[in-house]
């Protein structure tokens, strides 16, 4: 039951994950390494959407893109993690509710 709800709730962010994976597979390589941060902007966007969902994640990604300009220092800039992390991520990057535990 909970798993079904979770699947529905996670649907938008998984859609975002598919789009971002496609971007990272097809368009990102066209430009090579350009980002002044680690993880790169698209990796950050992927992580942000996985962690915070489509709306908040997109907002975080937009903020990061705004930070990534030629006058920025760059460096390490990880996605802020939620205090309580309830989902797991598959190797492809889909966010799922954990199959074990109380959920």
């Amino acid at each position: 039951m909970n798993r079904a709800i979770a699947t529905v709730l996670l649907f938008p962010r998984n859609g975002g994950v598919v789009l971002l994976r496609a971007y990272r597979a097809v368009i990102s390589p066209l430009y090579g390494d350009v980002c002044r941060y680690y993880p790169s902007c698209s990796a950050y966007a992927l992580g942000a959407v996985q962690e915070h969902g489509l709306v908040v994640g997109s907002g975080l990604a937009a903020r990061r893109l705004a930070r990534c300009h030629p006058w920025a220092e760059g460096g390490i800039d990880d996605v802020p993690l939620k205090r309580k992390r309830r989902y797991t991520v598959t190797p492809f990057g889909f966010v799922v509710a954990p199959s074990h535990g109380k959920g």
Partner: protein
Amino acid sequence: MDLLGTILWPLKWGVELLLVAFHWLFSNLGMGYNDGITWVLSIVGLVIVVRAALIPIFVKQIKSQRKMLEVAPQLKKIQDKYKGKKDQFSREAMSRETMELYKRTGTNPLSSCLPLLLQMPIFFALFSVLNDAQRSQAGVGPLNSSLAKSFGSATLFGDAPLHDSFATQWTSMIAGNPFNVAVMIIAATMVVLMTASQFITQLQIVSKNMSPETKASPMFKQQRIMLYLLPLVFAFSGVAFPLGVMFYWLTSNVWTMIQQFLVIRNMPTPGSEAAKAREERLARKGKLIATDGDVIVVEEPKKPQRQQPIAKSRAKKQTGPKK
């Protein structure tokens, strides 16, 4: 207006302004008002303006790439630490440490995402301007309906409309309807040219402008793969995009190629083959290069010591006998 339209609106306006301005210029210079070539040159003008505006960013990137030489020993240390470790976690840890080093030393060689972020919407804006013009629809700004009609019906070589793509012609060919061979040929030619220019650009960088440290890194391998993957990407997009958009892309690629050539020739990455070639070239002309890459013009060697003042009587004694 939808969200995407709102974001693209100012860009479309700018793209239209540049296109119309160049079209005005070229048609006043005596080129045909409705000719395809006039509109193609307007697109080329648009590319030149956009890319010229991005030059300062590029120069900044080159300058910080030069500073990389200073951190080369530290970079090597990191690379040695992760040598032979190919698993994902080591790779990530290595990128992380490298990035931290760049930040600490202020030598980040990467150009940031901004230039791409700027160019992609311009590309889409042009795409949508062409799309509207195809239906002879006036644009959002300077492209009024008569100009849009001219743009929309502009053809190359007599019968290849700029708004047409390989895919549309292919579909009508499959369906047994009349189709336009000229569009297909031009599109195919442009795909080949785009692939060639991109290939040359990448090959220039890979074969000449990389320091041995970079060549040893995993990044390099990835770039190598890209070199052979890109033609596929171009083939796909070349089929789907209208000719006008393809001209934008092709011109942009050619610009990158020339820019890269000039950079490799005049400011190569320290330690790379291009840098050695440049040193030799300059050495032949009797110039030397400082470690930061600047040219030093060699002057006549000065006398090491100043002449000691000598009393008149002694001077006579010294120079006297020789005379």
